[in-house]
């Protein structure tokens, strides 16, 4: 226990508590729904989580720096549409190039947001509320209200959502889900160990101090937005692959889903704390609630009310658990600290 308390912080345990809540939810729903524990349920949830997660990773980085990116839905929509249109026009485009196109476009859009926030010193909520509308407007003008249809897309793309990464028993891990998990792992490691990435935390934790000790605060904020845009671009590509039919309305409103995932996942909306892993758990939690609620034999019209309640419960119980843990930790901390005068052994 002592060892645990020295090496694990309550903030890390919060992710564990969210994991517990997820398990609890799965058990409860499993007892209420016939045939719940199937690979199909897993796949439903996994594939609906995959895209949101990728965007949520980027959003987490932005939120860590005490900003918010509300333009992600529009960026996903734009990249999905634009990449789809390119693929429809040039069937021979290699997959890698398609992915790069999507990411480059997302990156550019994120860079515009980032430049306005970091160098133009415009609050992020204002910038991204604006670009949310502007990017969507550009898309509508560009598209002329056409839809990118599945049959205009190359076959490899249409088959992509069904591509398996590995199969364990009868559990298919789809490539897209694996990609999302891979990104989470990558960024989780990056944000825990890379000094450059730790600056996101420092910056959000105390921007004034960051400025005073000479951190390149503008670059930090800028790069968070660029990463968020790039990941949204990648998500746009995944969106295109998964849904095939891309209207100009694609991914409208996704920003709220993503923010919900990030908040439920325990990322502090005022910056400085939270992890991309947590954000993924948040996305999973919400997806489980949504999907499972749907399968319960309850009226279509009851779903949102219950969903709202459950999200609130998830956030509340998470906070309660975390507070308990913090209390336990801080209580023992007193004993752990050796005060000056009682010998300096650490």
């Amino acid at each position, binding site marked *: 226990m002592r060892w645990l308390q020295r090496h694990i912080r309550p903030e890390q345990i919060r992710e564990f508590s969210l994991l517990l809540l997820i398990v609890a939810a799965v058990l409860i729903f499993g007892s209420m729904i016939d045939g719940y524990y199937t690979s199909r349920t897993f796949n439903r949830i996994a594939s609906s989580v995959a895209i949101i997660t990728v965007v949520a990773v980027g959003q987490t980085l932005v939120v860590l720096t005490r900003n918010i990116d509300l333009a992600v839905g529009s960026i996903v929509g734009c990249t999905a549409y634009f990449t789809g249109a390119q693929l429809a026009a040039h069937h021979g485009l290699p997959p890698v190039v398609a992915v790069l196109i999507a990411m480059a476009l997302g990156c550019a859009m994120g860079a515009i947001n980032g430049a306005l926030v970091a160098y133009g010193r415009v609050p992020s909520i204002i910038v991204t509320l604006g670009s949310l509308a502007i990017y969507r407007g550009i898309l509508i003008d560009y598209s*002329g*209200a056409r839809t990118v249809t599945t049959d205009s897309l190359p076959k490899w793309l249409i088959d992509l959502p069904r591509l398996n990464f590995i199969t364990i028993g009868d559990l298919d891990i789809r490539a897209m889900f694996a990609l999302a998990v891979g990104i989470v792992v990558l960024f989780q490691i990056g944000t825990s160990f890379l000094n450059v990435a730790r600056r996101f935390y420092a910056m959000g934790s105390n921007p004034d101090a960051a400025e005073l000790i000479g951190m390149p605060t503008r670059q930090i904020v800028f790069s968070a937005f660029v990463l968020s845009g790039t990941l949204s671009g990648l998500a746009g590509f995944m969106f295109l692959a998964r849904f095939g039919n*891309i*209207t*100009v309305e*694609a991914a409208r409103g996704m920003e709220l889903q993503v923010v919900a995932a990030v908040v439920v996942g325990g990322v502090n909306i005022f910056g400085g704390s939270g992890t991309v892993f947590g954000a993924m758990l948040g996305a999973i939690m919400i997806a489980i609630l949504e999907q499972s609620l*749907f*399968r319960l034999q309850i009226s*279509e019209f009851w779903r949102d009310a219950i969903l709202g309640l459950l999200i609130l419960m998830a956030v509340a119980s998470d906070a309660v658990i975390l507070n308990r843990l913090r209390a336990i930790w801080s209580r023992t901390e007193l004993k752990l600290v050796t005060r000056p005068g009682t010998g300096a052994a650490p």
Partner: protein
Amino acid sequence: ARAEATVAPGASVDMVLLPKFLGILPFDQAHQGAEEAAKELKNGKKLQYLGPTPENSVAGQIEIVTNAATQGVGAIMISNNSGDQIVPAAKAAKAKGAKVVTWDSQIPSAEGEDVFVAQVDFSETGKVMADMALHILGADGGKFAILSASPDAANQNAWIAAMKDALKDPKYSKLELQGIVYGNDQSETSYNQALAMVDKFPGMKLIMAPTSVGIVAAAKAMQDEKLCDKIKISGLGVPSEMLAYTKNGCAPEFALWSFVDLGYLSYYTAYGLATGAFKAEAGTSFKAGRMGTYTITKDPTRKAGLRVLMGPFSLYNKDNVEAAAK
């Protein structure tokens, strides 16, 4: 029947074409049709194609109608997404002398509306959908569910009601409606809902989606999950978007009407009313250019209100979808 009114070209009337919202294909096709009619009728004023964004549809439609009235336009053509909530604005527009023609989706109470240009007979829609279901599922019938747009779409609700009505006919006794689900006319939501329906409704053999967004999303979902053998898709769809699924058997049969024609006819109707060529009264006939002669009748699907019935449905299957998709 009275004499057929002729619509004289060359007048200058400000006209507004107002879709539910901007950015999806069928409405743009209607716009095309209306432009075609405008050219034929040599209207001196340019047709305004104005619409709200989807998330602001209701408030946006009301705002556009109100502003159009302020500007004193001659006619407003609305694909109404606001139910009866548009009524005060429409009435105000009429009071300022504008003609209010609805198309695609009507004002349920018919208040504030001169005439509704109905794409098809709404009670017919129910029968057409039931027929397609029976045709696809075969004589033994089976279970099916509906993937609708939003719970607030007046035309969708009317069609679903009509279909429920039609199902009472013993002819369709083998068809069992398991439930209605809403995809909010969003591809992603519809796609996810379609997948979820598979789990929610055990034994479901068909998804009936009377929405052009929902039907493609559902077809793609079934194809992605390799479920096309077990679960078929039908409903109302745009041929060019449905081509692949009809050919590979996921969506063997679906129906629609021509939105280009609908826009064209709506324009003729509104222009005729605004120029005083004819009045919005039951029994009036008029000639609508290349589409021929239409008559204004009482709308049998509503308590009050007049309509011009365009009809009929076009049914699409693997034999004719390719030609229609061109």
